């Protein structure tokens, strides 16, 4: 059985990575220095710069962070779109027809949930 979102859930499973996401949600285009400063000053989390950099790599692989090189510095922005997959995968029960547990990938058309008049 293939778990398609393993990287997404692994990224979310670490409390420091969730704090990094909290701080990235404050504003886009943050340098590694700003992220480290925010962790120390706002959360008293002092891990090495390399440690934060590795956390950012995990978040980027999961699609939760976008890294952009602008000029001579590297900027990080939160991209929370993959989180929508979690709520669409498990919609509230009884609201609409739940997606069938097909292991062959997503259905071709997204099920529109609330369609009753």
């Amino acid at each position, binding site marked *: 059985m293939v778990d398609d979102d393993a990287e997404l859930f692994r990224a979310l499973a670490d409390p420091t990575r969730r704090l990094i996401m909290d701080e990235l949600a404050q*504003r886009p*285009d*943050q*340098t*590694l*220095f*700003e992220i480290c*400063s*925010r962790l120390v*000053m*706002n959360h*008293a989390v002092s891990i090495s*710069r390399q440690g934060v950099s590795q956390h950012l790599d995990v978040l980027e692989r999961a699609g939760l962070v976008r890294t952009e090189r602008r*000029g*001579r*510095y*590297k*900027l990080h922005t939160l991209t929370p779109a993959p989180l929508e997959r979690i709520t669409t995968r498990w919609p509230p029960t009884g609201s609409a027809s739940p997606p069938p547990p097909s292991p062959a990938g997503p259905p071709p058309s997204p099920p529109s949930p609330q369609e009753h008049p």
Partner: protein
Amino acid sequence: MRLQAATIFVDDQAHAADFYTRVLGFEVTADVPLGEARWLTVAEPGNPGATNISLEPKGHPAAVAYAAALLEDGIPCCQLGVADLAAEHERLTALGVVFTQPPTDFGPVTVAVLDDTCGNLLQLAQVNAQSEPGADGEPDTSGDASPDTQA
């Protein structure tokens, strides 16, 4: 003993002299020809005791690598103190200065980071008045605020 001058490695000394004086507001305190380069220092105007900033060319390859690595990760090479960070941010932004970090309030200090256009980032810091002692989770005995500690 005191700190007389601290070095900032710059891409181009002539450009640095312009940015650090005309934009940031320092004044040139020394400008002496030194072979292909200059002994070029700037300091806070009107303060004879101010620490000089020596704007040195990146003559050594290590200086190039050092500045580039700091720049990539957004790490400022030094910290400059300002009295009113919001006003400085507004003034410098109007002059076209790029900030990699806008003023950010961290409680005891508010900081921002700007690009000096010479291959470095500079941190501006405004020390904030501590209105509530002990409110920042300081490991305190918390007895000094009590009015009835006198025996």
